[in-house]
């Protein structure tokens, strides 16, 4: 074909169509186009061959994972009840937000954190911690969403914004308000890195909510249920279309404590504004009836996964509200140790009924002058007067005669110097000094002069309020020490002291005198109708810092009591830090004792009424008398 061809055609045939005969000019090019088409179609088919025939399983598995999602069903924790079955700790249902990490976009983390008021860096750190877990496992990032937060989630869950957000219903712990019994109960929180490595948490996984303190921690295995799982078919908006499989959650078991909420409330009220602790227990079996540590904290503030700013505030408080003073405060017992000293003296035979000393207001031992707390002295003092007036000089003499190792023997028998074994974590041991103890710790011999301070509950001797309540309660029982516990047990453990009952009676009589005799230091604990035995204690606090600054710390006020004296049912110890004098702590113990005996009287009365009602035959026969008969004895209790 020549270049001039079309033009010649044009010249010959000016009419339409102008180039009619020369359509064959592009035959080769059209053929090329056909081959190109074949090439393109083969290229496309090869693409589908790759995806659909050669390795379809790669993508079909992804398709399944795409639509099937495993959502956790959090198991509710068991409730915690008091001894009468009243609920102390409950759960309430709320929404939690989970992030699905399979399709999590890094740049979404920040706006999500902002939208939900979560600290961005904390959230990042949290995601980091989960790096080791399989990616299909979602992580809960916020519990208990407020309506505003729920609205945020609902508005941003679509695939264009933050499709990685997912809501689940969860049960959250609800603790009593204002930190009631906070230290006993403890709180829950997400398992920490350190706990994951600890043997007691071996069966738990990242993200589990576990007990962090108190009963929550001690009985975590009982309280914690087993989370379930739901496999659901979801679309790309996270909407559920059908449920494939459900593994139900196993709820945790409820736990009944020996704690009596009535006594607990009274004790907490009595301690209001005072730093310190109260322990009330039943010396007949070791059941703890009330346990207070002040200042307290609101466990609801850190039951969440990511702790709020409140936590810092609580942790940095100089009064240290997190410390459970009932089992962790270790202070010199002061004069509350004297009943143990008296018992040891009688048992070891270094004193008897006729043993008397003269107290001029102080005495010199080993070249050092030791003061009595009453400057003008107590005059002639025997054992009974020594306890009632808490004469220091008398007990210096007892201690001097006993020697440190005999003191240590009886202190140890009463339960000092080692954990009581209560079912709470992190109990402190306190210190009972002895010659062996000093040698072991300081590689030094014991000096007899050091014994004198220990005789009045000072020196190296330190105890916890729980130890003191248990020791004095056991003494009131005539030398039977039950292991204190918070969860009822049918066969409570006990230690039998080898004690002459007559000696114990003498000490108990002395403690009766403290409360009930004129001039006794514990008169403020007197209770009409009930014989109360008690002992005050005002203990100096030694602190290196205080010594350095020359600033003298105020004395700690102690008071221990049990009642009734002849057959103790309740033993109470009160610690009021910087309370100055033990007699000022006595009213706290009295309030608790009063609450205990008032309640007992009320119950007896209610029982009597119920008994009368039951005895009376119904005037009109009712179709089902049984439920009525059961309801009636309950009704007076409900009115309490």
């Amino acid at each position, binding site marked *: 074909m020549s270049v001039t061809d*079309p033009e010649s055609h044009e010249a010959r045939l000016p009419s339409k169509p102008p180039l009619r005969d020369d359509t064959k000019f592009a035959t080769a*090019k059209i053929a090329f186009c056909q081959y190109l088409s074949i090439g393109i179609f083969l290229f496309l088919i090869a693409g*589908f061959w790759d995806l*659909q025939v050669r390795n379809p399983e790669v*993508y079909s598995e992804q*398709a399944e994972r795409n639509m099937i999602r495993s959502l956790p069903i959090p198991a509710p924790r068991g409730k915690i009840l008091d001894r009468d079955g009243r609920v102390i700790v409950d759960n309430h249902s709320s929404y939690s937000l989970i992030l699905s990490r399979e*399709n999590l976009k890094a740049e979404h983390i920040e706006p999500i954190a902002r939208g939900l008021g979560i600290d961005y860096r904390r959230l990042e750190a949290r995601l980091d911690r989960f790096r080791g877990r399989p990616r299909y496992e979602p992580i809960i990032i916020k519990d208990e969403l407020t309506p505003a937060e729920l609205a945020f989630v609902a508005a941003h869950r679509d695939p264009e914004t933050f499709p990685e957000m997912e809501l689940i219903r969860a049960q959250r712990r609800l603790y009593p308000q204002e930190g009631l019994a906070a230290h006993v109960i403890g709180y829950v929180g997400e398992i920490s890195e350190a706990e994951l490595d600890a043997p007691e948490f071996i069966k738990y996984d990242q993200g589990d909510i576990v007990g962090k303190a108190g009963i929550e921690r001690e009985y975590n295995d009982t309280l914690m249920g087993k989370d379930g799982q739901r496999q659901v078919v979801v679309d790309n908006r996270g909407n559920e279309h059908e449920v494939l499989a459900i593994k139900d959650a196993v709820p945790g078991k409820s736990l009944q404590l020996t704690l009596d909420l009535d006594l607990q409330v009274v004790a907490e009220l009595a301690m209001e504004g005072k730093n310190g602790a109260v322990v009330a227990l039943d010396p007949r079996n070791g059941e703890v009836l009330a346990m207070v540590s002040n200042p307290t904290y609101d466990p609801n503030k850190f039951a969440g996964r990511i702790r709020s700013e409140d936590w810092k505030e609580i942790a940095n408080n100089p009064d240290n509200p997190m410390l459970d003073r009932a089992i962790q405060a270790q202070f010199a017992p002061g004069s509350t140790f004297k009943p143990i000293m008296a018992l040891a003296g009688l048992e070891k035979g270094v004193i008897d009924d006729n043993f008397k000393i003269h107290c001029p207001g102080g005495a010199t031992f080993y070249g050092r002058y030791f003061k009595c707390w009453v400057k003008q002295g107590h005059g002639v003092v025997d054992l009974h007067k020594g306890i009632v007036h808490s004469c220091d000089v008398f007990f210096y003499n007892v201690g001097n005669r006993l020697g440190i190792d005999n003191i240590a023997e009886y202190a140890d028998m009463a339960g000092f110097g080692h954990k009581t074994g209560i079912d709470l974590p992190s109990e402190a041991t306190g210190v009972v000094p002895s010659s062996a103890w000093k040698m072991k710790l300081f590689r030094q011999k014991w000096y007899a002069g050091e014994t004198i301070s220990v005789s009045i509950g000072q020196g190296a001797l330190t105890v916890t309020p729980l130890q003191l309540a248990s020791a004095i309660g056991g003494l009131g029982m005539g030398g039977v020490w039950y292991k204190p516990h918070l969860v009822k047990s049918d066969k409570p453990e006990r230690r039998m002291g080898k004690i002459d009952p007559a000696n114990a009676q003498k000490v108990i009589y002395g403690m009766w005198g403290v409360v009930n005799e004129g001039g006794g230091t514990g008169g403020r604990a007197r209770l009409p109708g009930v014989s109360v035995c008690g002992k005050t204690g005002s203990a100096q606090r030694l602190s290196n810092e205080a010594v350095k600054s020359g600033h003298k710390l105020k004395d700690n006020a102690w008071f221990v009591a049990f009642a009734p004296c002849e057959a103790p049912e309740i033993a109470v110890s009160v610690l009021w830090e910087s309370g100055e004098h033990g007699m000022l702590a006595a009213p706290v113990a009295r309030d608790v004792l009063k609450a205990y005996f008032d309640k007992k009287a009320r119950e007896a009365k209610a029982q009597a009424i119920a008994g009368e009602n039951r005895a009376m035959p119904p005037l009109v026969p009712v179709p089902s008398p049984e439920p009525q008969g059961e309801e009636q004895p309950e009704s007076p209790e409900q009115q309490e």
Partner: protein
Amino acid sequence: MARYRSIRDLDWPLLIITLVICGMGILQIYSAAHETVWGNAWWKQALWVAAGVGIMWIVAKIDYHTLLSRAYVFYGLSLAGLLLVLFIGKQAFGSRRWISVAGFPLQISEFVKTVIILLVARYLTDLKSDRVEGRDLLKLGGLVAVPMLLVVKQPDLGTALCYIPILAIGVFLAGLRWQYLVTIAVILTLVLPAGWRFGLKDYQKVRLVTFLDPGLDPRGSGYQVIQSKIAVGAGGMWGQGVTRGTQTKYRFLPVPHTDFIFSSFAEEHGFVGVVVMLGLYFVLLMQIVQNAQMSPDRAGMYICMGVCALLLFHILVNIGMVAGRMPVTGIPLPLMSYGGSNVLSVFLMLGLVNSVRLQRFVS
């Protein structure tokens, strides 16, 4: 002249294949969208197809030379229409592409394709030469570039790119010196980086980047590619059955009734269905090529090959995207994707092809 043309003379194989593809498309639209707000899209599509067949018939009856003679008028109208879109167009999904005509949102850029086909055919025929000179190339390129830029401005890069194969096939058939090819290649390599820097919107850049590595952005642009590949792979050899595709049903697949319809089709009909469908498209194209070969003159050939190149480009880009072999450009699959403008535009083009065919029978 009309009496020489009858229904009998239409390209029946072409029409039948077209209707089979449309039928499969309607079935797929139903399958993909019957549980969504697009539940009635399938019968709307059926109506569009019916309207398309009517338009095809009307266009087929017009002598394409009449249309060619008014190519520049159409061109001018197109530019006016595109400008109108930019000013009063309906905005959706971040771009202005539609204007309302008698209550129907019409995508002007779709119909401009037909105009470009006519324009290229007219221009190249007017050259009356077996060789395209550089001056002519620049002129024609300029003529095509103006509507392209207007469409890019909407922004709708995918549709704008569709104009290029029409120009390319025309120039290729008209005869281009290899020196020009080299020059164009050199210019493109120089212009492309600048275009990347200044011409592309951010989302367009992202789409291109994620095409190269979908894993970079698994929930955004790459999400579409990944979900589409998952859907195709889940189809396997025989497919999961109509309305049974989980990727489609649970809406992991983006727009399964429009741009990603073939992905949904591949999930439900498997490799076998894909091969059959691609076969139908191939036969359709070859049928158009045959019409080109038998065209009474160069202008008719340019028209048919323009249509063929455009459809081939659409198929390559759309189905390639579905299989993860092409970037996500958002251009529809002709005859299958839901959308009135596209259906009408394709039938308009097939009408042109038939017009060329019917002119053979004019003595």
